């Protein structure tokens, strides 16, 4: 029996689409991930999901559900507004933090989850970086061994990064943290940041060194030339004790030091 091109066309189309239709009817046609990572097969955590298999197609909501990590912790660690973070795909991280010198992406989430849950994780697989907020959260909530601490020490993002204004605004829950002068808010590293401010009114400070860090006080801001009314506008109240560390004040108020720091850094930069 001869097979003509017409016969072949019918054969190809029928088998191809017929096969797809049959698989659909059987409920087997899946073009999206089932979002179930591999599990550890041996060791102390056998049967638990393995963070190394977290994928960019997962949302933070998926990560929270699969690894039982509160969304508020993920929101702090990856600097997203908590109400929105559940629907954010991990692959969006790279785009959001694209202005960094290092990559902050799905690998960072894998690292964070593994350390948060104290799961075994091969730190040599890829260079993953975390924001200072994530590192501080891990130090507070997870048990980190010396090797992991050393890794984090060299893989903490402390450089200043500009983030899209709407994201910052929606993240800034307390209304007093908004400032009209902050056209492009900045999130910068805190204590330990290279070139960060010393927290003293050192006369030898160069303009490049005027970076708000964990040891920066309100007095430092005034010394650097920021107007009192601008600071008060940013923090939404009159100046507290001038020798108070900004970080301590933010913590006491239940505010994100990173966000406040970003707002105030804009004021400092404007003076320069």
């Amino acid at each position: 029996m001869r097979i003509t091109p017409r016969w072949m066309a019918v054969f190809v189309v029928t088998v191809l689409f017929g096969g797809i239709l049959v698989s659909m009817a059987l409920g087997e046609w899946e073009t999206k991930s089932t979002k179930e990572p591999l599990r550890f097969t041996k060791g102390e955590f056998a049967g638990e999901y393995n963070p190394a298999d977290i994928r960019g197609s997962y949302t933070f909501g998926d990560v929270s559900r699969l690894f039982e990590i509160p969304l508020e912790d993920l929101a702090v660690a990856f600097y997203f507004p908590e109400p929105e973070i559940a629907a954010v795909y991990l692959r969006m991280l790279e785009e959001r933090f694209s202005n960094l010198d290092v990559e902050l992406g799905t690998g960072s989430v894998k690292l964070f989850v593994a350390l948060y849950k104290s799961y075994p994780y091969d730190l040599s697989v890829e260079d993953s970086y975390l924001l200072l907020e994530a590192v501080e959260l891990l130090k507070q909530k997870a048990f980190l061994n010396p090797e992991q601490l050393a890794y984090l020490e060299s893989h903490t993002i402390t450089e200043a990064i500009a983030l899209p204004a709407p994201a910052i605004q929606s993240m800034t829950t307390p209304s007093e943290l908004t400032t009209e002068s902050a056209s492009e808010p900045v999130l910068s590293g805190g204590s330990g940041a290279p070139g960060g401010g010393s927290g003293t009114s050192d006369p030898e400070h160069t303009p490049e060194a005027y970076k708000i860090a964990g040891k920066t006080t309100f007095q430092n801001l005034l010394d650097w030339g920021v107007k009192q009314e601008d600071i008060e506008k940013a923090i939404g109240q009159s100046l507290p004790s001038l020798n108070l560390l900004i970080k301590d004040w933010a913590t006491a108020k239940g505010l994100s030091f990173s966000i406040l720091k970003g707002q105030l850094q804009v004021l400092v930069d404007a003076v320069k």
Partner: protein
Amino acid sequence: MESTQPVKKSIKRRKPNWIRGWVQLFFFVLIALISINHTLAEEGKGIAFLSSASLHALCPFGGVVSLYQFITTGTFVQKVHQSSLILMIIGIVLALFAGPVFCGWVCPLGTFQEWIAKLGKKIFKRRYNHFIPAKVDNVLRYLRYFVLIWVVFMTARSMTLVFAEVDPYYALFNFWSREVSIGGLLVLGITILASLFVERPWCKYACPYGAFLGIFNLFRVFSLRRDTNTCINCKVCDKVCPMNIEVSKLEVVRNHQCISCMECTSSAHCPVPQTVDFVIGGKK
């Protein structure tokens, strides 16, 4: 014995295999639309009635590279989904009967290369598709099996879709996306350039999925046969074969490079009716 005398049967004019062209166009447009819709869907603007699946989910080769992980862990390599495995099975069913018919009739990258080939043929005329010396060409044809082994091995070892870094098919339909790799764009560029000189260069020398499907030519149910009693030895079949197979020297085409495009058959370019044909069961 091959006949060198004019055959009594009527010699017909060549006619292009138009139906294959339409099938190829259909699949090219379908994949392009789905890929665009995938991008739109990610921005919340997708077209509801059209699939918004990623290209990885619609590539049967994803099933091939994922097979090891699927068997050992029950999961798929990142970015690959169950649909890839189903398409792989469908591709195998097609190949068991008709050989790499997927390559010749469905694969949009193959179609794209053929379109560029039309330009190459206009530029170089008869020299087109004959730039590479036969000895070198014959060796290069096996390169794609090394690519296949490398991709399957590396994917099994790393559990990541290593081929995505150099995949010209993905690059072709995602060149606007941030997800496309530089390597993929580079290979696509080389493929486009090479297609001006050689027909289907990617398929001939590098495509791992083509290599996989090509194996089925050795035992496909539908066989491509040349009737030596009626063949006038005009070598039209050789000239029109995009894969440079010398059909005129064979009785049954079992070449691993045949893409079952049917261009050489009497239904298309062979001028003698019922001389080169795809047949079932070995007889016409």
